[in-house]
């Protein structure tokens, strides 16, 4: 899987590259508009992470370029602006997702995986890890060939873990992911704890070949 990261901030670029590299993706980078345009028109990628504000031009221009060339890449816009208009414009132009800075890397992973999964035309859209299969479109889970009934938050949680297997995801990141985050983080982290406890119970009862482990009270990890 090849991912192109278009981002002018070198430090952020390296963080994203590191994070995606750990997931086994091959990453390429472009730090400005021309470089990005060059790479887009020359190579094929599975996913493109696109910053909107770039030296030399707008990310949205690049996006229309990608779409004009009927490229099949999944495009995720990464923007510091988090403005509704940008989001709407980006999605209208054919972006697959929109991620506002600052984001958790686990969330980026989840989004990249979703975007690639949705673009995957000749396969099923399900996410599988060990004997757990999630169908994000129908929000159903199959463990050990049997349906597992989860409530909405539990499904979101499991999806988050499965798209970030074997990685430590900290509590705040989990809370923000399942909670959505309009303004304040309203829930206490106890809530996350109780949700995870329920999920663990359900997974082990269903005979899942996975467990969610607490890591020193800092976060959780599925393995």
């Amino acid at each position, binding site marked *: 899987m090849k991912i192109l990261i278009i981002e002018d901030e070198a430090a*952020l670029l390296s963080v994203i590259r590191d994070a995606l590299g750990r997931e086994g993706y091959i990453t390429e980078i472009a730090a400005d508009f021309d470089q990005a345009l060059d790479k887009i028109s020359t190579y094929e990628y599975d996913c493109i992470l696109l910053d909107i504000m770039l030296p030399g031009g707008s990310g949205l221009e690049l996006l229309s370029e990608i779409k004009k060339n009927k490229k099949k890449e999944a495009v995720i816009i990464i923007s510091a602006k988090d403005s509704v208009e940008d989001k709407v414009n980006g999605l209208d132009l054919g972006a697959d997702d929109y991620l*506002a800075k600052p984001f958790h890397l686990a969330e980026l992973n989840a989004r990249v995986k979703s975007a690639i999964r949705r673009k995957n035309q000749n396969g099923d859209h399900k996410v599988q890890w060990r004997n757990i299969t999630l169908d994000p479109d129908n929000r159903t889970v199959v463990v050990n060939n049997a349906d597992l009934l989860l409530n909405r938050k539990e499904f979101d949680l499991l999806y988050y873990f499965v798209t970030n297997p074997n990685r*430590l995801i*900290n509590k705040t990141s989990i809370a923000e992911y399942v909670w959505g985050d*309009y303004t304040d*983080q309203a829930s*206490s982290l106890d809530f996350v704890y109780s949700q995870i406890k329920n999920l663990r119970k359900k997974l082990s009862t269903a005979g899942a070949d996975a467990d969610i482990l607490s890591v020193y009270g*800092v976060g959780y990890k599925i393995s």
Partner: protein
Amino acid sequence: MRKRSLKNFTLRYLVLAILGVIGIWAGVFYVVIIEEVYDNIDDGLKDSKDHIIKEAASDPGILNTNAFGIAQFKITKLPGGWHETGNQIYNSKLYIPQEDDEASVRMLRTVFKKDDQFYRLEVYASTVEEDDLIENILTALVMLYIALVLSILLLNHILLKKAWKPFYRILEKLRPYKLGAAGKFECADQKIREFDDLEKDLAAMIQRNESIYTQQKQFIENAAHELQTPLAIASGKLELFMDEGSLTERQLLKIEEVSNTLNRLKRMNRSLLMLSKIENNQFRAAEKVNFNKIFNELADEYDSLIQFKAIQVQIQENGVFEFEMNRELAIVLVSNLLKNAIVHSEKDKWVEITITSGSFRIQNEGTLPLDEGFIFERFSKGKQNAHSTGLGLSICQSICNLYGNMRFRYFFKEGHCFEVAVS
């Protein structure tokens, strides 16, 4: 103090001033006229005197007129000796038998000598008509005063209305003006220099304030934006670091503390951005939003949290509340208030949502009213909530402020009530 209008204010002084001027003028006028009248009468009396004395020389019978009768004079023989022969003129009262009344008269008393005998001659002229004159003058003056005041009233009314029209127009334009709002203050070409100056100065002042305001807003927004990338870098690096697996528990916990602090900073920055975007009117798109639907959807969304906290949430729908506004903001508004109520509720307490056709109210149990002046202030927060940025309610207020007829208020009635109503 009750404020007087400009018209009444000037009118009051004008009426008083005219009263004073007319009073003084009436006094002076009266004195001059009376002087003139007496002068006239006195001349007449002197004439009569000369006439009588001359007449007495040829007709001694006249000397026997010793009482006032038809003749309006009397002559008294004086005892022997020398007498001063000067004229004395004075006002007096005299009984007039014909009229059977005392009358004011002007009396001339003199002494003349005929054949070595001194006689006193007293001649009078009635001054009754002068009283009439004074009366008439006074009446005329009062009427003049009334006429003057009335005409000034009228003139004042017309003139002030005309002259101050631009002023009132400026006031009218100024009244709905709001800093940073869309309506601009436009200059009309005024005919009166002062008003023209006033309007130009006002426009210049508004321009200055607007530009400072815009700059500051821009600054806040830019600062918040610019912070997003470094925040993303820092928290990303920490996340990667925590995931490395070679860290001890102690180290991991330390990093987590830093990460939590960063997360708070991220949330605060996001809230600030949200606030500045609301205030910069960046949520323009509007549609008819059904709040009943939003409440039900969000209550569903927060269901697991509600269950976890064991709170009773009840939605009482007495009507359908629909309002033309930005959908995203409506969701932010409701979710902030709902989260606020849920977070501040303890186990086994209730939250009640009441929706009517023109308002909705979120009520949660509480014992002590909150300080109304304080809760809407930015960065204010209760003691128990370490995760709050203190911006949630001010975001709600900013959203309601965005829509002119939407009111947001807090009151305490069997619990904390936050109400959004449309007028």
